[in-house]
């Protein structure tokens, strides 16, 4: 009896110590998978590096900016939030000030580029269409229509305020509010394929802008204060300005940040330029690939880029897997 108890105790102790040693490795990590193309690619790459290089058990959480920040504020999970665009969600700055989350790095080093775009062939036809003044003087060049983004997009709030400030509708340009990002993308793609005029809001880095050369319309000089007001839905005095570059961050919950310094070191280095991301997304479009496959393409084709991100030990483990 005593032998059996001590045997059971020894087995349990062994199991617990095994578990503990596995957890000391890295343990369970929850990471957001944003519901847009570049976000999904970043998450696929990061979770592969975490799993194979650092021995973490990664759980991907499909979500978007506002729900992810809300979840972090309320529950402290998910651990890693990728591709947060703080300009879209004021709540980010509140959470940062409260210390609930920690900014770890700029995942899109060039920042996001919002803007009002026209196709390149339109500018070749009418060079003045590259400026907003030119478009407002000749609304027929852009088909008399502005394609606005769907509600929920940060760029929609700014666009709405800019439309008011520049008085687009009074200059004969009808504003069409798309119901979803998909129809906005479809309208751009179908206009480009038939070489028809198009004018509307879009953002980079995206596969669409990687695939179809577009020109960002010159809206005058940048006024940072006006741009900040325009980004708020309750802005009393929308102002004329061009678009600021949006910082795009990787953030972590405070608890995770403090307990996993090696992962902080990795995620602070994970970063793509807009050219790199644009190339990846254009490849994804033309090969009809999933985010998973795009990540595999990136990891095999751009070894030198990601090898600079990982620690030496992780780099050795990953080298064995990725030829």
């Amino acid at each position: 009896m005593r032998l059996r108890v001590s045997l059971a105790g020894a087995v349990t102790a062994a199991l617990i110590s095994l578990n503990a040693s596995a957890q000391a490795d890295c343990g369970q990590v929850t990471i957001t998978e944003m519901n847009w193309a570049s976000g999904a690619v970043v998450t696929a790459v990061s979770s592969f590096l975490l799993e194979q290089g650092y021995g973490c058990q990664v759980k991907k959480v499909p979500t978007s900016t506002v729900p992810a920040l809300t979840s972090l504020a309320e529950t402290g999970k998910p651990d890693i939030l990728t591709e947060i665009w703080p300009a879209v969600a004021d709540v980010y700055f509140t959470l940062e000030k409260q210390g609930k989350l920690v900014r770890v790095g700029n995942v899109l080093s060039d920042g996001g580029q919002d803007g009002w775009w026209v196709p390149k062939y339109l500018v070749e036809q009418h060079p003045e269409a590259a400026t907003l003044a030119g478009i407002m003087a000749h609304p027929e060049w852009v088909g008399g229509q502005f394609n606005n983004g769907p509600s929920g997009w940060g760029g929609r709030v700014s666009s709405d305020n800019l439309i008011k400030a520049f008085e687009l509708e009074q200059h004969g340009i009808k504003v069409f509010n798309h119901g979803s990002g998909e129809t906005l993308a479809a309208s751009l793609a179908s206009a480009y394929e038939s070489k028809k005029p198009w004018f509307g809001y879009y953002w980079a880095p995206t596969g669409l802008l990687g695939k179809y050369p577009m020109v960002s319309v010159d809206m005058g000089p940048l006024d940072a204060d006006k741009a900040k007001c325009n980004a708020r839905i309750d802005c009393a005095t929308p102002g004329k300005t061009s678009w600021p570059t949006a910082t795009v961050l990787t953030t972590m919950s405070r608890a995770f940040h403090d307990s996993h310094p090696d992962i902080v070191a990795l995620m602070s280095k994970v970063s793509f330029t807009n050219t790199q991301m644009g190339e990846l997304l254009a490849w994804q479009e033309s090969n009809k690939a999933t985010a998973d496959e795009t990540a595999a393409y990136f990891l095999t084709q751009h070894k030198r880029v990601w090898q600079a991100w990982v620690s030496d030990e992780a780099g050795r483990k990953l080298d064995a897997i990725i030829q």
Partner: protein
Amino acid sequence: MSGYNAVFESLGLQGWCSAGTQGGPVTLAQLLAKAKANQAGAGEGSLPFPSLDALNSACPAIPRTRDMTSAIEHGFLTVRDGLKVVLDPLTQPLSWLLELSLKVVDLVPWWLMILALLALTWWLSRSLRITALAGSILLALGLVDHLHYALQTMAIVFTCTLICILAGLPIGILMSRSERFKSAALPVLDMLQTLPSFVYLIPLIFLFSVTEPKLYGIAIILYAIVPVVRLTDLGIRQVDGSVGEAAESFGMSGWQRLTSVELPLALPSIMAGVNQTIMMALSMVVIASLVSAPGLGVLVLRGINNLELGVGLVAGLAIVLLAIAFDRVTKASMARLSAQSKGYNP
């Protein structure tokens, strides 16, 4: 590497297989599997399900599943231009009707609109209780600044229901006449009812411009036409055979039999179909807003996208109130019609 390599080798198809292209995206899982296979030399005996992808990894000449889906897309894009030539003029009246009804909602002052709707409710139901219900719903919606959105949704639902009835009745009548047509139409109706609306939105977005109302009009009609068709067919088939024979013996032609005997007797069933069509059109409101339809769906989407619980809930409740109003009104008019038709039965 899998057991299928051995299968193809033994069949002597190596030459044909290696003529195929192998390239294209690999998944992370395949990357890992390749690494493990290189280390352990394992997997040569494994036999996964002989899917296109599994066979392709053994024999590159066999197309992958993604090639099949690309081929479908390619095929559709090839016929698209021809389809557009046929479909655009056919569907243009729908665009005009929708634009007209939305313009009416924009231009007519609110009090005239509410009075007109109450008059319509009274004419259909002849019930003070139901007219009061409709009136209180409209006033409640107006109180929370949802009246304009609700009227836009009503305009879209009414227009699409009208087209559904105009198109669905003849199809239902044809189905009741011909067994062969019915067996051909039934799978189509099943597909329209169960295929997720997003799935047939995709080809619609390719076919029609996203800025035109007919895009969401067609999506709503395709989804909502099914009850009218099915219940018209059911109603006519359920008309007592002896009544039809009696009509024939009186010297009525087929057309006269249809319009004077069968349709009036099938009217309760047809009205049930119209009721269900209105309900299904209303349930499509949010999906229609995804393709830029105005109305209450826009508010629901705003609530979903911005995580504004209150906005989404209130807009959703407004849709429910509209559904209740439509349901009561059409049921009351059905009751009136069936009471009348019962009066004609010997």
